[in-house]
């Protein structure tokens, strides 16, 4: 590859060697396994998240292949109904709760601090805790599946089928508790992202200069914050109904409970969930298209507004999952209108992307190839989505393979394709080496062709009456051949993923050395080394526009003055990103792991008995008390409030750095 290296100057050169060494020392984690357990560096945590989420992706993919084998021919006996129901439930649950949402947050936890030019997320220990709870939830689900306790009532677990009367054993309890666990971690991640973006942006990165991807993650995080409590309510009510010694009646019609409420609450989360997965993907797409069109994105403001609009409207269309239920017609019409309306912001974004490509000179590297695949597939999925918004059409295709095809086009086409693009795009930043373009093309075409072979026929199957979640079908239905095609496609997809794994593993060791900015991209993360140092930036960058690296970055000021002997970050104002104060964040600690273990144990034992609640409450209190006590255990400064926020020497350079400020050089 002959990408010219654009060097923006090494900030390290501006620091004294002793300071740099101390900075390195301060931000390094302890050696060995202990260091691995206690680290709170956002890149360490995010890398773990990414690897774990991809492992779950592969595991759930294996389940998908098993399902496709089972459905390849009518009346197949490869797996029985009991196992099949566990498999499709665990497939859906894993993909939604253990892959899609976590991996989107994982990328954000890696990239957002880099993109906004700070050294770590706002609450690093909380971040580590989030990972450990997520891992606990994943282990709980998959451990249960191995122990024949895999949930078997669908990833939506509708009552009464999942209620105490019709779902014997502990399978559904495992599902509910696992959902709660992973939602905790999703919420933690969302809080991290929002606060990091609000309070820790590079000096000068006012709201209208935030990269589109970071905006997308802010919108996503807010959606998580308002959507996830709904599913936690559902996954709280459900085990309370089922749990011995509790036996509540939330979903028992004989005592005034309501099965329909469950659907409302679940989909109030479930529909925004789709956008929680999709919006980060649009962030990837915008970033990649900008870089490879070699021009600023067309319509920055409309795209941001579209993201925000999607975030709002996303909460207004949950009932379109329930058109077949006895919900009043008038209400349904409202949700039809809302469901169609959400096509507008999606359309705006697609038009802006095409306009950007149109007005630029696209360089067809792997990330852009994946984005083009995304446009081809996502638009199709979006258009079938418009069909599903129509009540009459939905009544026909609801709960058929048409819907299966639709949401795989939206979620794989709309989220996994950009995700693969993002992996090819940021892999050099994360590992310092490029991925192979040649293998990348193999990966792309295998996956693209396999995907369409698998999921396109499902549209037809659905229209021909094949309902979802059936473990087999009769030969007389005539669905055999299309299913056969779909199943063969799954093998191509699997091959594609294997090529990807091979590519990633080999490139990590032997790929071409990337340098700081192999793609000539415009955002801040490309100014630091690949992979970035533990502290991300020796001197914090500042920003004067949306595309700092395309706007004479070498002339922008740098920020110095953060302590090198403790982990400090710079806190800036919300709107204009003016420096406000320095802020010491948590150091490496074993406490997040302990807290994660207590939480994990809590949710495993909660499957069996409610008496764990008081016991673990005690456990949490103890860990929290220690956390509180030693976490801030350093002797602290004492100031009165009026001593803050007043410039100590008026006119001090930097503190008044506005958009057009031109502070005088110090050195």
């Amino acid at each position, binding site marked *: 590859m002959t990408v010219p290296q654009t060097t923006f*100057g090494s900030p390290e*050169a501006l620091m004294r060697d002793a300071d740099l060494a101390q900075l390195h020392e301060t931000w390094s984690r302890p050696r060995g396994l202990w260091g691995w357990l206690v680290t709170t560096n956002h890149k360490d945590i995010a890398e773990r998240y990414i690897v774990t989420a991809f492992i779950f992706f592969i595991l759930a993919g294996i389940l998908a292949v098993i399902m496709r084998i089972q459905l390849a021919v009518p009346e197949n006996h490869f797996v029985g109904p009991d196992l099949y129901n566990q498999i499709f439930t665990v497939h859906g649950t894993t993909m939604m709760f253990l892959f899609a949402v976590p991996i989107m947050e994982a990328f954000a936890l890696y990239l957002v601090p880099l993109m906004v030019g700070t050294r770590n997320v*706002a*609450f690093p220990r909380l971040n580590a805790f989030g990972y450990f709870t997520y891992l606990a939830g994943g282990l709980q689900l998959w451990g249960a599946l191995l122990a024949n306790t895999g949930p078997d009532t669908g990833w939506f677990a509708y009552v009464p089928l999942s209620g105490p009367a019709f779902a014997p054993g502990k399978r559904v309890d495992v599902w509910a508790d696992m959902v709660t666990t992973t939602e905790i971690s999703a*919420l933690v991640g969302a*809080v991290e992202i*929002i*606060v990091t973006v*609000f*309070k820790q942006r590079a*000096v000068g990165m006012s709201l209208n200069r935030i990269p589109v991807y970071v905006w997308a993650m802010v919108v996503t995080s807010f959606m998580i*914050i*308002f959507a996830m*409590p709904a599913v936690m*309510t559902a996954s709280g009510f459900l085990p309370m109904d089922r749990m011995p010694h509790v036996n*509540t*009646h*939330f979903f028992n019609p004989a*005592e*005034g409970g309501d099965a329909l*409420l469950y659907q409302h*609450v679940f989909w*109030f989360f479930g529909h925004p969930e789709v956008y929680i997965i999709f919006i980060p993907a649009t962030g990837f797409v915008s970033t990649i298209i900008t870089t490879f069109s070699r021009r600023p994105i067309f319509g920055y403001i409309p795209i941001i507004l579209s993201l925000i609009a999607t975030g709002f409207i996303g909460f207004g269309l949950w009932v379109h999952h329930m058109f077949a239920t006895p919900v009043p017609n008038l209400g349904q019409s409202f949700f039809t209108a809302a469901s169609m309306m959400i096509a507008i912001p999606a359309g705006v974004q697609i038009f802006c992307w095409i306009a950007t490509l149109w007005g630029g000179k696209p360089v067809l590297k792997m990330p852009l190839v994946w984005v083009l695949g995304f446009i081809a597939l996502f638009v199709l999925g979006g258009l079938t989505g418009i069909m599903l918004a129509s009540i009459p059409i939905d009544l026909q295709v609801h709960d058929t393979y048409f819907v299966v095809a639709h949401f795989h086009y939206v979620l794989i086409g709309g989220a996994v394709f950009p995700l693969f693009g993002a992996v090819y795009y940021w892999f050099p930043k994360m590992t310092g080496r490029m991925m192979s373009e040649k293998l990348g093309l193999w990966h792309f075409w295998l996956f693209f062709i396999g995907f369409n072979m698998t999921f396109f026929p499902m549209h037809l199957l659905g229209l021909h009456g094949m309902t979802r979640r059936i473990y087999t079908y009769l030969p007389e239905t005539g669905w055999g051949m299309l299913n056969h095609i779909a199943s063969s496609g799954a093998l191509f997809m699997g091959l594609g993923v294997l090529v990807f794994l091979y590519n990633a593993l080999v490139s990590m060791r032997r790929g071409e050395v990337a340098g700081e900015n192999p793609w000539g991209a415009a955002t801040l993360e490309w100014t630091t080394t690949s992979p970035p140092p533990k502290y991300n930036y020796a*001197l914090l960058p500042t920003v004067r526009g949306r595309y700092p690296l395309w706007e004479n970055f*070498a002339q922008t000021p*740098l*920020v*110095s*003055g953060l*302590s090198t002997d403790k982990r400090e970050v710079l*806190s800036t*104002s919300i709107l204009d990103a003016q*420096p*406000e*104060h*320095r*802020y*010491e964040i948590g150091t490496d600690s074993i406490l997040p792991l302990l807290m994660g273990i207590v939480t994990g144990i809590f949710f495993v034992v909660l499957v069996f008995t409610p008496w764990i609640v008081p016991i673990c*409450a005690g456990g949490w209190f103890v860990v*929290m*008390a220690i956390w509180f*006590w030693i976490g801030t255990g350093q002797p*602290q*400064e*004492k*100031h*009165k*409030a*009026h001593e803050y*926020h007043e410039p100590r*020497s008026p006119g001090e*350079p*930097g*503190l008044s*750095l506005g958009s057009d400020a031109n*502070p*005088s*050089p*110090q*050195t």
Partner: protein
Amino acid sequence: MTTPAAETSRTIIDISKLPSSSMDTRSPIWWGNALLLCIETSMFMIVTVSYFYFRRNFAQWPPPKIDQLPVLYHPVPKLVLATIDLALLLGSVIPMVIADRACLKMDEAKVRFGAGLALLIGIAVITIRFFEFNSLIFRWNDNVYGSITWTLLGLHLMHMMILCSEDGLMFVWIMVKGLDDKHARDIRVTAVYWYWVVAIWVLLYVVVFLSPRFL
């Protein structure tokens, strides 16, 4: 690679003189706390909406209690303890405001007084709450009315306990080690949480204890 000469031309903004902590909305922890409260607020909203959703399944709310003699035809929850709770919680805002304000001036004595008094009131509220469940007349496993009201009160009790643990830890810290910048900020953040918990109780008082009398 660029030459050191080119490097020296870059402007350096020195922020080493900026304060190392902040006491208000400028502080990241304030925002973290606010977002957690957003999460919990949506949780309470959804449970409250469920309460009214269940209400539609009943001709009369709360449903008559028929498994006893004499039958209770309109078993609205008793007000006494809940109202005492309300008064105590509203009253607890005063010491919390005192502590909150005192943090700005680093007035350690006042902070001790405020946080300590609030803690005592909080513990009193928690104690009362355990008796208060009985004023609901139904048990959680009697019917959905019992389930949802116990859940609402239980969720609030959980927050009361977390709140008191938090305030208690702060209080002990100040007693042992004195007040410093970070803990003054933490107390201010705790105060926000405290006001929120009180506000939620006002909501629950209206929903659980007053609304059955009017709806």
